[in-house]
């Protein structure tokens, strides 16, 4: 669709599901006026505010950060706030809830199973010095190069697009799926973390990365440019190396001691007091 051929109206085909009514989801059509810069989410608001207030979905930030508005739009999982109508190349917008999840209502998927898998893989820093972790006295040392080993995986916003695109998740409810596995790898790779052996307890079984056959769809649809398929391969590599006892465990990064012999430059003001 070029700038000259923008449609005057957009046809929305929305998959509706009311759990208390008919047991089958049904398609419902709405026609709304097209305005320049209209996103799929904007269009849903136009429908809700002017046509059908019963339409339900999840959304929050409207700027591709919160990960709430993942939907199945014209055959691909995408963030509806991040998807312009003009980039779809069609004046018909087909919106359905993300596949591979049960539907709670209309466009709202039940993300519970995904977050159960996520939680089971301890997606946070695990290390023995709990006191320092809870009440930090200084920073843990980490170089830029060490940070870049996991940085891209930390851009994940848990929007579930990768889970919706994964053919293995579609057939195996035990498999953790791309997001939880990529987050496990993200924390395993973090030099401040010491939780590999704890995450391994879950990862070495059927919840782990073993059933991935590298379709790569998770990486293709990720709206944040994360590469979960790569994380899964790296996770496999580390777990195989661990089984073969080729993995060299390193102690988690230590706290950086504040040097004594430095002073604040007088022209740099003190930071304002903490507000929280």
């Amino acid at each position, binding site marked *: 669709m070029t700038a000259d051929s923008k449609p005057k109206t957009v046809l929305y085909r929305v998959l509706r599901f009311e759990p208390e009514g008919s047991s089958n989801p049904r398609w419902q059509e709405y026609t709304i006026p097209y305005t320049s810069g209209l996103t799929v989410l904007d269009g849903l608001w136009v429908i809700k505010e002017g046509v059908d207030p019963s339409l339900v979905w999840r959304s929050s930030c409207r700027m591709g950060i919160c990960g709430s508005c993942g939907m199945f739009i014209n055959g691909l999982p995408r963030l509806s706030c991040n998807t312009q109508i003009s980039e779809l190349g069609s004046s018909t917008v087909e919106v359905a809830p993300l596949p591979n999840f049960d539907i709670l209502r209309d466009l709202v998927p039940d993300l519970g199973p995904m977050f159960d898998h996520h939680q089971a893989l301890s997606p946070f820093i695990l290390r023995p010095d709990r006191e320092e972790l809870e009440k930090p006295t200084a920073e843990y040392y980490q170089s830029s190069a060490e940070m870049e080993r996991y940085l891209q995986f930390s851009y994940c916003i848990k929007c579930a697009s990768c889970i919706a695109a994964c053919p*293995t998740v579609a*057939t*195996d409810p035990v498999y953790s799926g791309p997001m939880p596995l990529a987050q496990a790898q993200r924390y395993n790779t973090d030099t401040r973390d010491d939780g590999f052996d704890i995450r*391994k307890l879950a*990862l*070495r*079984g*059927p919840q*782990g990365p*073993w*059933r991935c*056959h590298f379709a790569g769809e998770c990486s293709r649809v990720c709206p944040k440019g994360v590469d979960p398929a790569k994380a899964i391969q790296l996770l*496999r590599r580390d*777990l*195989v190396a*661990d*089984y*073969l006892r080729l993995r060299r465990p390193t102690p988690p990064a230590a706290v950086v001691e504040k040097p004594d012999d430095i002073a604040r430059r007088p022209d740099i003001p003190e930071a304002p007091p903490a507000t929280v």
Partner: protein
Amino acid sequence: MQDQKLWTWHLAAGLVILVLLGLHMAIMHLDAALGIFNPSGGHPIDWANVVARGQTLFFSVTYVLLLGVALFHGLYGLRNILLELAPGPGLKTAISWLLIITGVALFVLGTWAAWKAHQVALGGVLV
């Protein structure tokens, strides 16, 4: 543990297959250059050449080794493919056991055949 272990062995078996299958292909198709494995000349699968190879312990052992790793690698791969069809827990267990029994049976049969072939090559009588 199970999947981490099985996957690692799957990879290791693949590497062994790469070497042994490479050796097999070299013997079968590079016989002009590798006449050492075909002492009687002619085609690599001529009876005299097969007997000559079968007399050596190296080939008898590698036949059995290749059979074992190929069965494990292939049947584990087949199991992964079958599990893509989303069988229930009971069927999943049944598939695993069926493949284990099939693999063990074929390995025993193949090992027996390799041992008999070794005996025949050494001048024994095929019974």
